[in-house]
């Protein structure tokens, strides 16, 4: 019987096959680390007198806590500063490569891996961060882990894992003008629910996925965790190889040829069996935004805020009631009438060069709406430098937006970039949970195009409204 893409990658990493219900022991090709979920893991190693087994397969960057202004001054918040200093000390003690603030390769961990070319097809990649699923866009098996598992991988370069089920998400047809990868994944999450993928690895496939750029595929795979899937993958193709070729850690010469030969085998066989398949017709999609407090509570931008009575399931109805209270929204309100205070363009979901280019194109030559602030936070220092080389920073600042340094920033508000209580944002990030962007803050998840158009009008909008 044929195998799926995820089964092929899985099988190639089994160190010890689990018997009698035990999990397989998988080899991990790369662990990415950041300051928030690693300190207790390094402490655990020290307590047990253990070393990092493969410092050369470990890469650290500072991103979650880091300020996006004055990055070369000491971090003002003493607790954040201690956490970042702790990562630096741990990296030095255990011999791990780190990209610190001010370094050209610093940035959000899931932007840094791909741009270094160290994220490659067929790898197993883990990080103490649920958006590790991003790397699946290259045909890697990549997933988020907790701190105990971070320690486990540091000590052994392996992880015991029970085999997940397999789901195909097949997307066909051309995306209509103005509809992006973000709208596609937000629509999918609203249909399947935040737990719909629990226990599954997803494979996104079909001509719509094939026609997406690598960065668009990253946006899709990034949000796999928002519908509960452990990982999301896309089969690597010529576009993937083209993206990787010449990057700092891509193989060269004969090694490149060997790698491409292997990577080319990484696709689901025609007779491979999935436990479940979901089919999406891309031609019917529209710009899509969230109204509630989980990523599954979304609606087309042309729609209205739903009423709790629209939900037959009592659990969903109660959740909608709570969400509307928290979001301070009335059922029946047109989404386009919702006024925002803040627009956030950035994050591991939509903080890459294409996202910045798209937004800049929308707002070029316009002025930001009165009373609205817009933060543009590139996903990495290199994205920032490249955007500046293209003059995008000027487009944003002349528009009236704030051009910041790279990091996670307002996606989760661990640094000073937060919403105040009651403030409302249109955000290109991945989570609209209560308080996610700051206590009492209200988040609408949107695409970069919708974020930019919203900054122009002050209410949720897309470029066709301008």
């Amino acid at each position: 019987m044929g195998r799926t893409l995820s089964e092929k990658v899985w099988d190639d990493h089994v160190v010890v096959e689990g018997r009698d219900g035990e999990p397989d022991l998988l080899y991990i090709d790369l662990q990415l680390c950041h300051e928030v979920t690693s300190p207790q893991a390094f402490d655990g190693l020290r307590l047990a007198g253990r070393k990092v087994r493969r410092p050369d397969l470990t890469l650290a960057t500072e991103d979650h806590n880091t300020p996006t202004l004055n990055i070369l001054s000491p971090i003002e918040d003493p607790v954040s500063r201690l956490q970042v200093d702790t990562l630096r000390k741990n990296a030095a003690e255990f011999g791990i490569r780190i990209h610190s603030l001010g370094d050209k390769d610093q940035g959000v961990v899931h932007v840094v891996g791909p741009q270094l070319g160290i994220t490659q097809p067929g790898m197993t990649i883990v990080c103490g961060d649920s958006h590790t699923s991003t790397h699946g866009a290259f045909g890697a098996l990549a997933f988020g882990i907790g701190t105990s598992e971070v320690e486990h991988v540091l000590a052994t370069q392996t992880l015991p894992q029970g085999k997940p089920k397999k789901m195909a998400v097949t997307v066909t047809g051309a995306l209509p003008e103005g509809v992006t990868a973000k709208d596609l994944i937000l629509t999918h999450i609203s249909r399947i629910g935040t737990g719909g993928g629990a226990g599954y690895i997803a494979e996104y496939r079909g001509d719509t996925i094939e026609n997406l750029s690598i960065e668009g595929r990253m946006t899709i795979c990034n949000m796999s965790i928002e519908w509960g899937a452990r990982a999301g993958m896309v089969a690597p193709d010529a576009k993937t190889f083209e993206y990787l070729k010449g990057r700092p850690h891509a193989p060269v010469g004969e090694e490149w040829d060997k790698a491409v030969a292997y990577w080319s085998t990484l696709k689901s066989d025609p007779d491979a069996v999935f436990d479940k398949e979901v089919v999406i017709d891309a031609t019917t999609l529209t710009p899509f935004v969230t109204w509630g407090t989980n990523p599954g509570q979304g609606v087309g931008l042309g729609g209205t805020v739903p009423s709790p009575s629209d939900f037959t399931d009592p659990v969903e109805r109660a959740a909608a009631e709570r969400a509307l209270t928290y979001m301070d929204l009335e059922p029946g309100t047109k989404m386009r009438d919702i006024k925002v205070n803040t627009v956030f363009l950035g994050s591991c979901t939509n903080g890459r060069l294409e996202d910045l280019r798209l937004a800049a194109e929308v707002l070029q030559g316009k002025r930001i709406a009165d009373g609205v602030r817009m933060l543009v936070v590139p996903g990495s220092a290199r994205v920032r430098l490249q955007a500046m080389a293209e003059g995008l920073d000027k487009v944003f600042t002349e528009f009236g937006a704030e051009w910041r340094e790279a990091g996670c920033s307002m996606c989760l508000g661990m640094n000073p970039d937060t919403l105040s209580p009651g403030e409302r944002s249109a955000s290109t990030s991945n989570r609209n949970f209560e308080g996610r962007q700051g206590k009492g803050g209200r988040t609408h998840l949107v695409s970069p195009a919708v974020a930019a158009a919203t900054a122009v009008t002050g209410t949720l909008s897309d470029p066709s409204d301008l």
Partner: protein
Amino acid sequence: MEKFTTHTGIGTPLRRSNVDTDQIIPAVYLKRVTRTGFEDGLFSAWRNDPSFVLNTPPYDKGTILVAGSDFGTGSSREHAVWALMDYGFRVVISSRFGDIFKGNSGKAGLVTAIVPEETVEALWVALEEQPGLELTVDLEGRTITAGDKVYDFAIDDYTRYRLLNGLDDISLTLRHADEISAFEAARPSFKPAALPAHTAG
């Protein structure tokens, strides 16, 4: 890790679904570099509300949390598990858990007991009708006892075995050190390494 066989304690009904790990512990509490003392961050936004269940005796003394579906979705932060355990919870009962949360719980010693939605509802009703009702969770037999009712729960065999024996995962894996070395020796030469570092200059 401490062994877990059976546990009896007050049940706390949390009538909410989709409790993501940002609600269990907001990011602002994640800046610490220690592994204990996260109880103050547990459900911190909701605890400002005097009517929240953890502000309502005797539920504040609960050690078994009964929650709606999709508990622990979202962020991978193991701090969510630590906050629940630091507060005193030993078991969470729900009809479905976020995968990463469930994995983290198994590593840290928190039991995640999966039951049908009807059982969650029945337990909620029992705990609301008899505040302070003690539940008994038997990991060996995979049962929850509430008064004269006994319910089965699911937990995967391997996690159960590790919890029953209080086994540390890393030592278990290190029994396979030779296999790991053999696997490493056979890895394809084109696989990348972070060291020596290459950059685009």
